[in-house]
């Protein structure tokens, strides 16, 4: 597994997509810095808030593109056949690639989080907002939550890569999954509270959402940004359950990916 992990790590840094998405992340941190100027009362909180949103967007794209590059494209070009000539199991290949993607995402997370940290503290000099942001442990725990969220998105994209016979399908479905899994909590909340009085919509969407939550994880449970932004720690029980939900779902996806890849025939 180690050689697949290391080859993923090296290939990730060699690929142009790594730098493309990484510069997108840096640009989004810049947007977060500028967004602070819109706020009349809490510039650093707004910079942090917008920064977390951009951070999650860039990291999700980064993970999806990496999985596409390291697994999807290898299968598409049949270069995977050469890789499988090594005396190693197919499951080792899938797990090694996934571990490599997670490590690359972690490295990008640390760099982008440090940039955002600087951008937030530099936002709005000369104005002390009444309620300061917490940039110590709460900040890094919120960054960890985003990394875990992206790990689930990467696991889903990995599974799609192993079953897909269309080159762009993992990219497209990975993006749809990243949006849907994040929006699920808000949409469920909206529908369960009556959808602003739209009874027909609530009646139609309610049963669909009841099924959807068993298939798509609600990744909004991994968004712990209120802690660094407002100093209100999320419920530890809910945080722990969110972590269990994410890890188990990622486990299911990696398991399905190993299953599909082990049975796939490369002609």
């Amino acid at each position, binding site marked *: 597994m180690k050689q697949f992990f290391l080859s993923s790590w090296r290939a990730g840094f060699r690929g142009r997509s790594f730098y493309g998405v990484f510069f997108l992340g840096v640009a989004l941190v810049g947007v977060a810095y500028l967004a602070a100027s819109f706020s009349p009362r809490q510039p650093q909180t707004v910079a942090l808030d917008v920064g977390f949103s951009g951070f999650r967007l860039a990291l999700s794209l980064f993970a999806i593109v990496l999985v596409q590059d390291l697994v999807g494209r290898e299968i598409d070009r049949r270069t995977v056949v050469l890789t499988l000539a090594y005396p190693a199991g197919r499951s080792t290949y899938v797990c090694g690639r996934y571990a490599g993607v997670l490590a690359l995402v972690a490295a990008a997370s640390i760099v982008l989080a440090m940039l955002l940290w600087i951008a937030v503290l530099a936002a709005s000099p000369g104005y002390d907002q009444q*309620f300061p942001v917490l940039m110590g442990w709460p900040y890094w725990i919120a960054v960890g939550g985003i990394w875990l969220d992206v790990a689930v998105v990467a696991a889903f994209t990995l599974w799609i890569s192993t079953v897909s016979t269309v080159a762009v399908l993992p990219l497209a479905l990975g993006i749809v999954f990243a949006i849907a899994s994040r929006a699920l909590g808000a949409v469920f909340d909206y529908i369960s509270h009556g959808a602003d009085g739209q009874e027909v919509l609530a009646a139609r969407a309610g049963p669909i959402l009841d099924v959807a939550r068993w298939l798509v994880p609600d990744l909004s449970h991994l968004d712990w940004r209120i802690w660094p932004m407002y100093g209100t720690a999320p419920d530890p029980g809910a945080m722990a359950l969110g972590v269990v939900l994410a890890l188990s779902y990622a486990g299911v996806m990696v398991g399905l990916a190993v299953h599909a890849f082990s049975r796939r025939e490369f002609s």
Partner: protein
Amino acid sequence: MDSLRHYAGGIVACLCYVAYACAVQPLYQRPRPSVSVEMQVVLPRFVQVILAAGDRYLAANLAGFRTLVASTANMEPENFRIQALVQMDVAWFNPAHEDNYYLATALLPWNGQVGATQTILEAATRSRPFDWLPPFHYGFNLLHFLKQPAEGAEWARLASERSTDEMQALQLQQMAANWVAKGEDLGLAVRMHRAMADQTRHKAFAAFLEKRATRLENLLVLEKAVDTYRQRVGTFPVSLQQLLKENVLADLPIDPFGEGYGLDSNGRPTVIGRGGRVRGKE
């Protein structure tokens, strides 16, 4: 023939550029539809979340930026109704959003959207247990707009419990007691506007709040003048000119927003809009 084929790409590009150049000038001379800076549209909440890549905090910020850049100078009641809906959406996406409750307090209740403001402030009170301002503003709105001083005082007491400054907590308790005893206090509204202007770093918004404070001060002056007139003459004045004739006032105050003052059907001073519309104590 071969040489023509060799240059075909360049020739096509030149011809297309000539067509482009012919279209540019007349297009730029045509009048453009003016972009309305007032609030006109509100999207369903789940659509806003999807447009923000599923991120409800980003949806809150995007809607929040809309409310910040919207011009309130020429807003009609319908625009304020839509602004209230957008700000309630922000409170739903992120109830702890500080700018949202601050802006809502500064704009909405003074333009007929008291219910929406109270919804936003109630959500902020729940999600910001460390902040004394949302319950204070909620209580003030109960006192000033809804004429419920006793209920307002309860919220002022909640604000005093949250205040970390001992002196401020005492002042809030004193204020709560005064609300129950005296009822409405226009002077407090003036002081509140000045305090809010001090709290923001946006100079234009602070200037707007200062103008509103001046308007309320003018109304306070007129209120006192009407009371003096009633004591002297025994009846309410029919127009503000009577205050000048009776030498109760030397001259009428000038509205900082360029509108005017008049008297409502009860003889109390009020703001008269540009079209002669009675706008209340905005």
